[in-house]
């Protein structure tokens, strides 16, 4: 849906993110200034109008430097011109001058307290720089300015989720759903928050709601499968991963996940087939190689396990589990020096179990 834009502003917004469902991109609203409005505001200076329009054109053509200069000139002529601050903020954003952009968005809000878009763009800036706390605050600010827009609380929830503040994320998603009762994305993400809090039944209900409102949402099926896998209900996990694959036949993540559900049921051949399919779709998918290795370990095909782990590690040199598993396979091949070296690497990368292994008698004198 389109973000509501204040009539007085001439906006150019650039969004780094385009969601499949929620179109938050903005387009240039008109090419110039309505003289009547300007007159009503006392902005009758033709020079200001000229520079403002030049700024808009520069911004449209992504000539951010020129745009920032033009809007600066406008601001010098009229320091209370909120739209000029907003648009200069957009120019600064284009120039990756984030601090200046944030300052301009804040000034725009100061001058025009109803400018939810300025808060939203500020949130995006924070989000892009990985500052989810500030992003969540800015989304919250946007949502408080515009109490009807469902995307602001939704993105606030997303930012909170990324901070692993799942309880707070759920509250934000609740608000998004209150504003839009068929908001499938919000149901999915609230379900994910609940899954992270191990509220599996709540997560299942939310994912089912997401599917109800968007039956093609393949990842909601995948996530539903993962909840069941976490509940150790591997039959249902397998079922929903299969549903995800039906909706997106090249969904290698779901193949990988289904493989792990099958692995947990001892269906090693089927699991191997799924991991191989994931690799066929995405040959750079390190997880599937590691998981293949896990099957090979169970099948006592230790050399194959080492080879699979080698591939996983070649794709991701900091892949803790692949080092850990390769250590297991090497031990069974009686390569204790290699096994202990791999567990040492896994330990350095954060595996506590690997620490126990390197301190075990197997590694005495071998690491």
């Amino acid at each position, binding site marked *: 849906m389109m973000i509501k834009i204040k009539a007085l502003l001439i906006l150019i917004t650039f969004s780094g993110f385009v969601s499949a469902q929620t179109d938050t991109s903005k387009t240039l609203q008109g090419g110039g200034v309505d003289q009547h409005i300007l007159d009503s505001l006392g902005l009758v200076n033709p020079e200001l109008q000229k520079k403002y329009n030049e700024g808009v054109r520069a911004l449209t053509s992504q000539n951010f430097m020129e745009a920032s200069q033009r809007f600066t000139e406008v601001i010098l002529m009229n320091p209370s011109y909120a739209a000029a601050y907003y648009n200069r903020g957009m120019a600064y954003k284009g120039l990756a001058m984030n601090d200046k952009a944030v300052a301009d968005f804040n000034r725009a809000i100061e001058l025009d307290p109803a400018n939810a878009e300025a808060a939203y763009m500020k949130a995006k800036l924070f989000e892009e720089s990985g500052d989810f706390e500030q992003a969540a605050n800015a989304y919250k600010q946007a949502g408080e300015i515009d109490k009807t827009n469902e995307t602001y609380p939704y993105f606030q929830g997303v930012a909170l989720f990324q901070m692993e503040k799942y309880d707070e994320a759920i509250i934000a998603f609740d608000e998004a759903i209150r504003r839009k009762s068929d908001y*499938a*994305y919000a149901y999915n993400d609230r379900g*994910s928050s609940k899954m992270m809090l191990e509220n599996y039944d709540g997560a299942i209900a939310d994912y089912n709601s997401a599917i109800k409102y968007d039956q093609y949402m393949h990842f909601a099926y995948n*996530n539903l499968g993962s909840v069941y896998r976490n509940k150790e209900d591997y039959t249902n996990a397998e079922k929903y991963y299969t549903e995800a694959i039906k909706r997106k036949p090249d969904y290698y993540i779901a193949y*990988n996940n289904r493989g792990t559900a099958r692995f947990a049921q001892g269906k090693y051949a089927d699991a191997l087939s799924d991991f191989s399919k994931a690799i066929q779709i995405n040959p750079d998918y390190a997880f599937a190689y590691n998981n293949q290795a896990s099957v090979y370990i169970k099948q006592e095909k230790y050399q194959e*396990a080492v080879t699979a782990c080698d591939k996983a590690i070649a794709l991701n040199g900091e892949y803790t589990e692949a080092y850990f598993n390769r250590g297991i396979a090497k031990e069974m091949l009686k390569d204790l020096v290699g096994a202990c070296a791999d567990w040492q690497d896994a330990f350095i990368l954060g*595996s506590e179990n690997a620490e126990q292994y390197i301190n075990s*008698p197997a590694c005495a004198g071998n690491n």
Partner: protein
Amino acid sequence: MKKYILLFALALIGSSSFLQDVPFEKDLFKERKDEFKLAVENIEAGDANVYAYNYPLAVTYYLKANAFNPNSGDLNYKIGLCYVQFDKYQMKTYFEKAYQLKPTVSQDILFYLGWCYHLESNWTKAIEYYNMFAGKATAPELQPLKTEAFKKIQECKNGQLLEGKKARVWIDNVGKEINTDYPDYAPVISTDEAIMIFTTRRPDTEEMAPIGGYFEDLYISRRVDGVWTKAVPIGKPVNVKGQHDATIGLSPDGHTLYVYNDDRGNGDIYESIDEDGAWTQPKLMEKTINTDGHEPDASLTFDGKRLYFTSDKPGGFGGHDIYYSDWDDEKQKWGDAVNVGNVLNTPYEERSVFIHPDGETMYFASKGHNTMGGYDLFFSKLVDGKWTAPVNLGPPLNTPDDDVQLVVAGNGRYGYCSSYRQGGYGEKDIYVITFLGPEKPPVLSNEDNLIASIAKPIKEKITEPTLVSEGSNMAILTGIIRDEKTKQPLKAQIVLIDNEANKVIAEFTSDAVSGKYLVSLPGGKNYGIAVRKDGYLFHSENFVIPNESGFRQYNKDADLKKVEVGQTIVLRNIFFDLDKYTLRPESVNELERLIKLLNENPTMKIEISGHTDTRGSAEHNQELSQNRAKAVVDYLIAHGIDASRLTYAGYGETKTLISDEAIAKMTSSGDKEEAHQQNRRTEFKILSM
């Protein structure tokens, strides 16, 4: 369909009836009189050797006769019976043929056929034959064998259950430096696997015994850089030419050897001590241990205070039982034997007892419990002073045949046994068992599109499964004791103290030649270790070995300092409450050692100094160290040391043994904590004599 089955059955009957029993009767071999005569002579020679218990030789005669007439049910049966005595895996061929040729050859052939299948782990067929035998064995003389058949049926049922509980072990031949074409068996090891002593029947140093090959001798091999060196005879006085000398046990530190000798006619335990690199004359152990019965096994606990052994003396539960005897410090002799009870002992045989130096695990062989055939290896744990129900170590370590002996290294990962296995060097060989511990579960990775508006998937957090500690729950402390200045090895006394119980657990000595020592430290205790030698200041170490902490090996060399002015010693076993200067009760032993030293040197004046680590404020550390040093001096004065001989000082964090820079470079938090621990200490310094 039924018609085809009937035809197949008839065909089988037809083919079996083709094999006909051909007895050794003159009339049947009229055309081959001379060959027949020779064959009969061979049978008679075989029979004579059977009466002389020389079964291998008997078989060679029987086989010659069998080559002349392979279709005698009786002869095939006799050959099978001989193989029962010395090579069970050969008997099946002959018993099967004997039964085919002459089902009535003997009722017990059904028992032996059951045993043949039993040894192949063909449980169902074995049970079938044992049951057939039991059903037909009505003669009174067959009743003992019938009882045995019922036991073996149970063993097969045990085997069926144990098949699904295979032990995660590797079994590898220890190699040609130890094993030969001849029987090599009964290995015993020091707990750090530095020494292996075993029994062998090789011709290098011995002559032929009346039966069974060469006389037994003990050989020794040492492990250097993880590799066993060429085994050599342990030599006199342990080995005696023309006499069987066999290993039965070795103390964890490798200095006390138990050997078996039956020169009194009933098999007894002898003890030999490694005194400065030479083994003493094996000495017959006291009557509390050796009796008129048969005592073939012995194992000494880590502290040298209890000897487990086996005996078939009257009064047990049946066959050989496991007993123990405690060392009486006052009387300086072994106490009365105590039967370990019927949790471990059964009406059947219990043998090859081995007490692990973790102080809580016993391995032994038994024909009772849930054996899958003959002797199986079991372990039991000592929990709250009671032995738990023995656990069968399972296949492949246990087989339907006899699996008799196992010794396990301190680390719990490696064990040693001997057996006859395919691919060996010939006869019995010594094998190393690697206990792999619980299966190591691989870790899988998942990710999901948890956030609808973010295309990048989110990796699921890995919750690592809780692992059980591998290996045994103990530590081994090894090292070399030397003179600080000359670096010459010293024979010193090593006292192991349970600090919390304030009790001396064990005393050892280091080797005079090498200065080496080895002490086993079972988990769950705070150990004080004091190294003492006349003319030297004592050296102390402290080890806290928590329960369930797995296995650790420490190496601590100790350079003893002569009693001279200016010498400084760290008192590792003086403890204070956290951030306080109250002496903890565990400090008593160390303080008593210090008092003894001061009493032995009445003119000695010392300074007690306190030191802290660098955590906390310098002022606080200074005050704390000062107070702690004073607390030690106060104790000494209270226990009769003249105050004029004592001074004290607190140095706070100004004299650390390990610098902050060095600690900062350490990667492991455990190493860092250990470094801080080293810095927190109490020292004494000799000011004058």
